[in-house]
């Protein structure tokens, strides 16, 4: 593998990792603060992608679509909280898993009814249609670089809010000791609503940004949801820092694995079976990493709650 190809895969991994972080951050915050496990989070990512794609398509501008998708994602998240989620906070994880699974069915089917089953084509955003030559033999699409930069900016902003502000202090306290925060007289109902809303908006943002890169299809949220679960489990539930590190690691393992596994298998097998075995092993790789991490540290790398 050449240096430029390796570099390309590293960048792809970084970009996937950033998107995963945006989804996982909401998931891990919601779980950490409210002890609420939300399977529908992936569907919110998908919805963001669809909203941005169709509004952007209608208005002829990706950026206007993105701008419109953010408040709509937020509103949708708040509506879900009001309709469904708040009735589940006091219930066990199993009930939460199942009820939000029901929500996924509805959103998936709704999307299918509204937009059809065929993938939606999203043109490259205006101003970012070309590529940037990073080194000899490597021209990287500028929009993908934009995703990386935007994601890092959001991560930095979240870090500032969570680590430095009063709100962040409440969120962190809630993640490690929710009853304590309630006892301090904080209006947890509003805190919960806010965390769910921000989480939904982040997921919608990630979906909107992913539109021009990946296929916008029904069910695109499932894949991301499960990878995001892997991320927050590896990172330690409730930990933003853990989610960030784990997201980048998962993104890199996923892309590098897919690129390199078939070649690695060539060492043991013929070309055709090597390609096949490589693909199979590559798709299992992140799960194997997760299993290994959990076998070593059953509560993830950076457990937020210290009992």
């Amino acid at each position: 593998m050449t240096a430029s190809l390796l570099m390309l895969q590293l960048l792809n991994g970084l970009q996937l990792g950033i998107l995963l972080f945006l989804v996982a951050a909401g998931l891990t915050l919601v779980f950490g603060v409210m002890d609420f496990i939300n399977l529908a989070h992936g569907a919110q990512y998908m919805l963001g992608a669809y909203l941005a794609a169709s509004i952007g398509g209608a208005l002829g501008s990706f950026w206007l679509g993105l701008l419109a998708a953010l408040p709509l994602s937020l509103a949708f998240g708040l509506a879900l909280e009001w309709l469904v989620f708040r009735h589940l906070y006091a219930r066990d994880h199993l009930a939460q898993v199942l009820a939000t699974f029901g929500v996924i069915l509805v959103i998936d089917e709704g999307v299918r009814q509204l937009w059809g089953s065929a993938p939606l084509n999203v043109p490259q955003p205006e101003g970012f249609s070309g590529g940037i030559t990073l080194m000899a033999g490597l021209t990287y699409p500028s929009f993908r670089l934009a995703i990386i930069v935007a994601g890092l900016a959001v991560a930095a902003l979240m870090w500032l809010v969570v680590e430095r502000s009063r709100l962040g202090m409440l969120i962190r306290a809630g993640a490690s000791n929710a009853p304590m925060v309630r006892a301090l007289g904080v209006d947890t109902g509003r805190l919960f609503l806010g965390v769910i809303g921000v989480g939904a908006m982040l997921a919608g943002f990630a979906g909107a940004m992913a539109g021009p890169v990946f296929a916008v299809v029904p069910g695109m949220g499932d894949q991301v949801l499960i990878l995001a679960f892997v991320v927050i489990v590896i990172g330690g539930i409730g930990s933003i820092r853990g989610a960030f590190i784990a997201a980048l690691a998962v993104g890199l393992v996923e892309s590098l694995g897919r690129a390199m596994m078939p070649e690695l298998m060539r060492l043991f097998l013929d070309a055709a079976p090597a390609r096949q075995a490589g693909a199979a092993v590559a798709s299992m790789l992140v799960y194997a990493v997760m299993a290994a991490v959990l076998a070593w540290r059953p509560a993830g790398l950076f457990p937020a709650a210290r009992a």
Partner: protein
Amino acid sequence: MTRLLRPSLLLPLLALAALAAAPFLGFGDRFALTLLSRAMILGMAAVSLSLLVGGAGLASLGHAAMMGIGAYVVAALDLAGITEGAIAFPAAILAAAAFAGITGLVALRTSGVYFIMITLAFGQMLFFTLSALSALGGDDGYTLYGRNTFLGADILTPRLSFHFICLGLLAASWGLCAMLSRSRFGRVLRAARETPLRVEALGFSPFPYRLLAYVIAGGIAGLAGALLANAMEFVSPAVASWPRSAELLFMVVLGGVAQLPGALVGALAFVLLEEGLAHVMSAWKLVFGPLLVLAVIFLPGGLTGGLPWRRRKQERRADA
């Protein structure tokens, strides 16, 4: 005789009797029998899952993987020209049990929501592996040459015969799980679910008990998978997809986590409702999804857990 009248026995016995009588009460056509056998097969998997959820407190979100293994063992043997059920079925059970044993070694080190997620991850791992098996059709799946025969006898093909084989195996699975959860073994499992610290202070390590339950449940689900492959004469990675695992979990919870018969009732209700809705409208999930949400919110004890007033009465009795 009075023992038979207890609700924990009465309800599943009634359900099994209804299934036995169904073909003769106007549900003997192809569509009805296909639907019923599907319900019974998923019911088997749900019963085994309820041994884990209700008996041991292990909410696995990867139980469909065990079914997937069972189904794909049948398919792989079919590809190799082996259609003898006396080989394929035991192989399916053993393979699923072995997969459960290996993944259980890691998964059971965790608990609560971590357990839910790691079982989900193992399920996905298997799903992608199956999708990459191009010899068995990859994503598109694999159509069986024919149903398994048993010692040369073609007992799985006649619809009525298949119906009663599914029924017999469902009854046997239920009987096995009921027996296990009432045994000394099951008592330790149930105790460890409620108060693990007490169980450890008595000198039990919950791990081997949980692992064995996980392996047994995996084996039963493997058997269900082998039956499913025969019922559809087709396998695809969708058998092992995570929504299927969620559905199985739903059947258990819908029936009522606390009791084993719940899974049986839950599976029947779930499959019949799902297929019934799908029969009536194409966008059936728009109705089914909200029904699931409402069921979770308003029926916390499941269908067999009774209506809210009945639960209150039981609580009062417990307080007295």
